């Protein structure tokens, strides 16, 4: 199964990279951007065909390694 884990910074955590991107967009003349937060996307292929098992596995992967839950949130999506 194909799946995706999206990791984003928790609100309130300063994101200097997002701020820099925000500034760059503004200087490129891309108008109307209120704010930018940078995150990470992991596209993962899982051997199992079982949806619940895949979700559990990805949750484990995110908790153990992909996200640092002190500063980050994550979202697991099974794409099928």
């Amino acid at each position, binding site marked *: 199964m194909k799946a995706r884990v999206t990791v984003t910074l928790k609100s309130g955590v*300063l994101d200097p*990279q997002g701020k820099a991107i925000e500034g760059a967009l503004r200087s490129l003349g891309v108008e109307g951007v209120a704010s930018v937060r940078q995150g990470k996307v992991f596209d993962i292929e899982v051997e199992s065909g079982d949806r619940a098992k895949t979700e559990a596995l990805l949750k484990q992967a995110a908790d153990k390694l992909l996200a640092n839950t002190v500063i980050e949130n994550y979202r697991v999506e099974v794409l099928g």
Partner: protein
Amino acid sequence: MKAAVLVFPGINRERDMARTLRLVSGREPAMVWHTEPELPAGTDLVVIPGGFSYGDYLRCGAIAARSPVMDAVRTFADRGGLVLAVCNGFQIACEAGLLPGVLMRNQNLRFICRDVYLRVETSNSPFTRGYNAGQVIKVPVAHGEGNYIADSETIARLEGEGRVVFRYSSPDGMVDPNWNHNGAINAIAGIVNERGNVLGMMPHPENHVEAAIGSTDGYDLFAGLTDHLAKAA
């Protein structure tokens, strides 16, 4: 002192660290590869050195923190063993859960490589017994992610329990945003764990131990540790 210096792929400060340990303690440290499930018998100090373990992939220190040797380090620290974690080592220690908080990208987004001043906040630690509280030392930093943060509850605990050991300061010991190079919360440069046996710090005391370099301000950290371990033995 029977020190073990951990070696991960991408680490590049382990030889500076080994040289300093040898110079100050007179004993050769063991170099321990990250796949080792155990530390050498009799180890009384574990050093997690600086560098760029796993190319800083994913998050600084994240992958190194999950290597087999870190399980051994966790057991060692749980038994009260001393762990000195410098720079990438500090990031690894945080990722491994040995220390609270996270080292984020420097506030100015630049890699900072320069000498900085640190105010020693306490001499009541095996790591700082060679200094006086309030003393200012000059040591180098070299990092892009040294901006320490933690949730407000953790920061309050660290401050309340006197676990902030080093703070970025001016040469005369004033804590001021202009001297807080990476934007760390409360200008935190180094902290210890609850038990006080694990120190994480971004600056590199191991690089200022010889007069030929221009400053020997890092020497007393290692001399204090050597002395502490000699007395404990």
